[in-house]
């Protein structure tokens, strides 16, 4: 019996999901095209804003460009919707098979959610780094410290996003579709994570509120570590927040899931 043994089923489902999701290369390529075009529009708008104003901005234009490309590259990190497979399990009643598995259902779905928030992004992010990096002023991190801080913050970001995705999965047990909750949560993430706009451009009074929410830790903080805009040593002040959010969101998920399975009515048919 070794240390990894208890995690084996979860690692297995994670790697199986990753391998499945990596198959959709044509979709990834189309996604890359869409996100690339979108990135160009957003950059041109910022370029025009910076041309129009001489006021000191919270971020330099060069940093904004790289930040925007990063947000386009890691778009799949946004918890848009519940896992479509989980949703159909709930709808068809096949969820009973999930319940009899000798594994923790929360972590079983959590592993799937991690795959859902990473694998489809691989073939979107790679071409983005290459094309935007070579031709459209996307810069690399200034040094190895910044890179390491970025990677650590990014791993936590993936876990936060997976935890939110899993909350959406669990919400389907109540609503059957999860569309309504999903729409609200993804709208909130979209605005408050840095996807629509680098967060520093929001008014100064809003920053405190943004710091108190989990969304910033999914995009904004990792991206600013990448830019070197937050000193790499600050990882020690941000990491506890990220870990705390992972604990809160997974804990909340556990509690709700336990409640849900106790009062679960299986859809027959």
């Amino acid at each position, binding site marked *: 019996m070794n240390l990894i043994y208890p995690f084996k089923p979860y690692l297995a489902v994670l790697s199986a999901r990753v391998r499945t999701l990596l198959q959709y290369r044509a979709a990834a390529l*189309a996604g890359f095209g*869409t996100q690339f075009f979108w990135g160009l529009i957003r950059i041109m708008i910022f370029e025009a804003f*910076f041309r129009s104003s001489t006021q000191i901005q919270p971020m330099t234009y060069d940093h904004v460009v790289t930040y925007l490309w990063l947000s386009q590259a890691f778009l799949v990190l946004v918890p848009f919707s519940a896992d479509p497979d989980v949703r159909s399990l709930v709808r068809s009643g096949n969820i009973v098979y999930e319940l009899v598995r000798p594994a923790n259902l929360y972590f079983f779905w959590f592993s799937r959610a991690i795959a859902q928030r990473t694998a489809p992004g691989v073939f979107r992010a790679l071409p983005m780094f290459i094309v935007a990096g070579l031709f459209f002023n996307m810069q690399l991190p200034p040094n190895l410290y910044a890179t390491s801080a970025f990677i650590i913050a990014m791993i936590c970001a993936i876990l936060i996003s997976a935890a939110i995705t899993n909350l959406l999965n669990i919400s389907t047990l109540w609503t059957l579709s999860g569309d309504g909750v999903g729409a609200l949560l993804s709208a909130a993430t979209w605005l408050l994570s840095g996807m629509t706009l680098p967060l520093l451009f929001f008014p100064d009074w809003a920053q405190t509120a943004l710091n108190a929410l989990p969304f910033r830790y999914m995009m904004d903080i990792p991206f600013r570590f990448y830019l070197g805009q937050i000193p790499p040593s600050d990882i020690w002040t941000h990491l506890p927040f990220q870990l705390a959010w992972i604990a809160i969101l997974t804990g909340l998920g556990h509690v709700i899931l336990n409640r849900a399975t106790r009062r679960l009515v299986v859809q027959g048919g």
Partner: protein
Amino acid sequence: MINALKLYGHYISISLRGQMQYRASFVMLSFGHFLATGIEFIAIAALFDRFKHIVGWQLPEIALLYAIVNTAFSFTDAMSRGFDMFGNMVKGGDFDRLLLRPRSTALQLAGQEFTLRRVGRLSQGFIVFIWANQHLHITWSPEKIALCILAIIGGICFFYALMVMQATVAFWTTESLELMNTLTYGGVQTAQYPLSVYRAWFRKFFTYVVPLASVSYFPGLALLDRTDPFGSPVIRHYISPFIGIAFLIIALQIWKIGVRHYRSTGS
């Protein structure tokens, strides 16, 4: 023609009654759609708070462009679900059934669904319009009212044409092309800002290849009594929305070619 309109009306009323069976879900989804599309404006307002203006345009002027394009797109989005889902229809061979009925295929697809929850985007566009109007002091002469309505109708036709073209591609590829989203959703995003913001190749593309500027930027200039930095005459600003309507007519002609080319997948 009258007969076709009657049939379309009938299709729509069936679709609406169907959606009203799930009232709570409709309210949730509409509200979600309202928020999801409305956050865009919050981001724009935040940027104006930092930068004050973009190439000489103030926030209320941008808000007017934003309101026009979002209003137009919300209508298209509600009425074009049949074309949006057309790829699946071809894949499943379900299009054969439409061909058997003695009505035009385009009409039948248009009548597939009237997606009522798009009222979310429509209402936020409308709120932004009211806000912009309060800050702009536009004198609403009859010509301007007509132009504003025409711009929205032109916009609806323009986006509808893109949807039809996206569906037409499926005759050859049996897949809907996700890349077309860059023109629809990307078009909405683009049209929220004046054309003078963008680089030359991009401006030309959205003026001459895909005539987005005709249904947003040019009528917007006339409504705001602005002159075009690239020197287009005022008369062009007034007639440009018709280009959106022409664009739809062209798209429907291409659609007919596609229908003739159709071969069932047989599944």
